[in-house]
């Protein structure tokens, strides 16, 4: 009996810390995967393309979330890592005619290194100063990509055009559907790895650094190494997203990677839910569809509508969409218990 009670207490604690998933959470994941698999069968190729972009941005948002939500480091520079990933893919496919799927690990490794190297000097910066340094990174990116001496590779202002891959193995599905499913699988793998990373020893260390860096160090965490590595991992996620985005859009150009992209990823993270893995998916949806909705509401002043929508979101869902869902569920079950 005592052992049984102990097991129960352990189970509750494991669920509370996110080390384990409840039955309900597993069901939620299964439903989400099923919906994800069915969606392209129900909608037009153009919509499928849009949903591919949702997955792409969901990856980028997760990347930023690992850095900001779980490790407490700010970044307004993720457009730079997105660009590095996109150009890595474009250059590999255009110059060396390497197959698109090889560009993902390459973009990931390049961004891991770039992020780690950027993270090293950024160790000295905190809060607003780090925001400023990453802002500098993001505004420096488009001019660098346009730079004459690099234009042999980057295509200068014109950018690089790439061809959309066909479905392999003679599968009778459209290019858009194929790319969607391909991105979907990459997303599942990356989300699974992120969950593993965050629920174990490394994840606890990241969160400990966020909550109290001095105590984290006193507990034996090499905070400098962990923070730089987290920058690298965050950049890796965003870079793979950039590579997939480039393949889906079939085109990269400097002005696709302005500071505004960094802000869009940040907005996706905040509205989706800071420090939440499932919230990052909602972040992707927000990035792709909120501007669309805004434009449908008002062709004349879409950004005014966009701004208003953001304010409303923050007002009604201060913890983001995922926080809103969690709180709603908690309230429901409490009422059911009270009855």
């Amino acid at each position, binding site marked *: 009996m005592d052992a049984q009670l*102990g097991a129960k*207490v*352990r189970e*509750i*604690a494991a*669920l*509370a*810390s996110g*080390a384990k998933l409840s039955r309900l959470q597993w069901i939620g994941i299964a439903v989400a995967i099923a919906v994800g698999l069915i969606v392209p069968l129900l909608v037009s190729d153009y919509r499928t393309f849009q949903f591919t972009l949702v997955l792409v941005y969901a990856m980028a948002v997760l990347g930023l979330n690992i850095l900001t939500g779980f490790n407490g480091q700010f970044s307004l520079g993720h457009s730079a890592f997105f660009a590095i990933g996109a150009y890595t893919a474009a250059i590999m496919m255009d110059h060396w005619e390497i197959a698109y799927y090889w560009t993902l690990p390459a973009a990931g490794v390049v961004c891991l290194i770039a992020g780690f190297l950027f993270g090293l000097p950024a160790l000295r910066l905190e809060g607003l100063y780090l925001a400023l340094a990453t802002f500098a990174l993001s505004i420096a990116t488009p001019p660098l990509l346009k730079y004459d001496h690099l234009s042999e590779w980057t295509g200068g202002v014109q950018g690089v055009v790439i061809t959309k891959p066909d479905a392999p193995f003679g599968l009778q599905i459209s290019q858009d559907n194929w790319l969607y499913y391909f991105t979907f699988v990459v997303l599942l793998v990356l989300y699974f*790895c*992120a969950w*593993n*990373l965050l629920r*174990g*020893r*490394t*994840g*606890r*260390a990241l*969160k*400990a650094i*966020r*909550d*109290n860096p*001095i*105590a*984290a*160090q*006193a*507990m*034996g*965490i*090499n*905070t400098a190494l962990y923070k730089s*590595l987290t920058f690298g*991992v965050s950049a890796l996620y965003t870079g793979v997203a950039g590579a997939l985005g480039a393949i889906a859009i079939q085109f990269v150009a400097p002005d696709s990677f302005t500071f505004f992209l960094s802000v869009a990823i940040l907005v996706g993270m905040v509205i989706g839910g800071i420090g939440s893995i499932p919230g990052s998916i909602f972040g992707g949806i927000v990035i792709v569809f909120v501007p669309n909705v805004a434009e449908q509401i008002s062709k004349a002043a879409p950004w005014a509508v966009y701004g208003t929508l953001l304010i409303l979101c923050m007002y009604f869902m201060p913890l983001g969409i995922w926080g809103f869902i969690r709180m709603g569920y908690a309230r429901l079950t409490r009422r059911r218990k009270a009855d």
Partner: protein
Amino acid sequence: MSSILEVRDVSVNFGGIVALDGVSFDVPRGGILGLIGPNGAGKTTLFNCLSRLYVPSSGDILFDGKSILSTSPYRMARLGIGRTFQNLALFSRLTVLDNVKVGAHCSSHTDFLSNALRLPWVKRDERRMEDKAWALLEYLELTDVAHLPTAGLPFGTQKRVELARALAADPKLLLLDEPAGGLNHEEVEELGKLFRKIRDDRQLTVLLVEHHMSLVMAISEQVVVLNFGRKIAEGTPAQVRADPEVVHAYLGTKH
């Protein structure tokens, strides 16, 4: 080698303030040493030197016979020096269980990649930490709050979580900075018994900073007294209590 820690002529300056001024003492292995002194005497500063957060301007600190002054702060836990903080320094959004598990961080070496893939040895390591953390939670009667984030817990409970977290690293030397702060008389007495028990069960050395004189005098074998950054007395509790300078500087003003 009977001293686990040797503090040799350590001085610390902050701008014009001399927080520690040539302080020397030894901490015998397996003992409980009380470090007392009025507010601002330099007790926490000394702890911060021992966890390498502050750098002494002169002097040396030997742990297990070796100088620690060129060791990185994050290596101190693995070396065997654990601590609690005067003003709680918990990971406020993590659960009590996770806080204790972070305490055991230094007891293993797993990297980002093997964690992301959750390779078999990571799983095994997680299970080990899980068992270790639960054993400590039981030991310190914290199982009921294991699943709660530490932010909302009562002060005394948070102090105990800090203690559990520090013990999770299996320290050889445990630095306790005012562990009884905010507790009532009975709780303080309980805590004294607990520290003795911990010392005996786990065979570690305790360096205790505390303003509750009754606690310090009851459980310490040795007491070192600081005032304005200088050591003004050292000896058994009885000797220190009878020392006129201590009475004047500290006990005299308190009672």
